[in-house]
């Protein structure tokens, strides 16, 4: 366990290993997303309440899940970065934040595009919608802070502090918004609360979610390699790698 931690903490090891993982993850992502798309857009039956409009679910829900999953993972990385000063964890945060932000944006966009036909409006101040919007601001804050600080070493540490403070706040936001919405009125917007979903819908949905996760995994490794190379451009291992003919790129 400890040696594993150590190995993955070393930049050259990570840089080399990641390049081997990326093709596999991409392939997995491609397969699962392809199945999800076919299953969702073509094979899955029409929802008798919502018509064809419900098909947005196949991108909306995976995006929403990813947005939350990525932020949590960033907070873990932030703790590791601050406590053990682990370089890889710092790089992870700056690599993952833009991906997380774009998934959050997609969840908001697809959600409101779904809301117009379903609820008749693009936007309501529902609890879940509001907290997703705030999550977007949290992401933008991390990205903004990271890009505003020029010394990238300090920038990564500052972004870690912010990500960590943000994650402490997330349950509080969740709770406050939830509570705030239900104080005055019952739920006006009924999403389909666990309707026993047709497996013809469920499998493609899960497959899409899995595909998005693989996609994220591949993408974050690509971005981390860039970030690592940028930060370590002067170190011995980079020049060795360049001299030895460039190895895997």
């Amino acid at each position, binding site marked *: 366990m400890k040696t594993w931690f150590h190995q993955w903490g070393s930049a050259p090891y990570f840089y080399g290993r990641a390049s081997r993982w990326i093709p596999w993850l991409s392939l997995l992502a491609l397969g699962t997303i392809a199945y999800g798309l076919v299953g969702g857009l073509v094979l899955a039956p029409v929802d008798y309440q919502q018509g064809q*409009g419900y098909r947005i679910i196949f*991108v909306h829900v995976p995006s929403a899940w990813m947005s939350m999953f990525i932020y949590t993972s960033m907070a873990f990385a932030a703790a590791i970065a601050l406590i053990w000063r682990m370089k890889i964890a710092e790089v992870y945060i700056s690599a993952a934040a833009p991906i997380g932000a774009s998934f959050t944006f997609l969840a908001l966009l697809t959600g409101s595009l779904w809301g117009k036909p379903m609820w008749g409006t693009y936007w309501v101040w529902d609890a879940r919608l509001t907290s997703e919007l705030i999550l977007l601001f949290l992401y933008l804050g991390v990205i903004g802070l990271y890009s505003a600080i020029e010394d990238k070493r300090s920038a990564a540490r500052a972004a870690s502090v912010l990500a960590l403070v943000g994650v402490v706040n997330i349950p509080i936001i969740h709770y406050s918004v939830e509570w705030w919405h239900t104080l005055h009125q019952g739920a006006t917007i009924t999403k389909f609360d666990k309707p026993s979903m047709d497996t013809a819908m469920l499998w493609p949905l899960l497959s899409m979610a899995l595909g998005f996760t693989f996609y994220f995994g591949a*993408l974050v490794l*690509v971005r981390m390699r*860039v970030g690592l190379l940028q930060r370590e*451009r002067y170190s011995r291992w980079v020049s060795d790698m360049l001299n030895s003919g*460039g190895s895997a790129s």
Partner: protein
Amino acid sequence: MSLAEFFAMGGHAFYVWTSFGAVAAVMIINLIVPVVSHKKLLSELRRQASRKEGSTK
């Protein structure tokens, strides 16, 4: 289901296809940008490395 029907999405074409299109676009751009910048960075570093070697020799 005909192809036309498929594209019409039961009258919700705009919403459905904008959603899928936006997701696809964002995901593809997200992938292209770092791959390109990786290539650029590597070639820049190579150029610098060779320049430095050239000057020391």
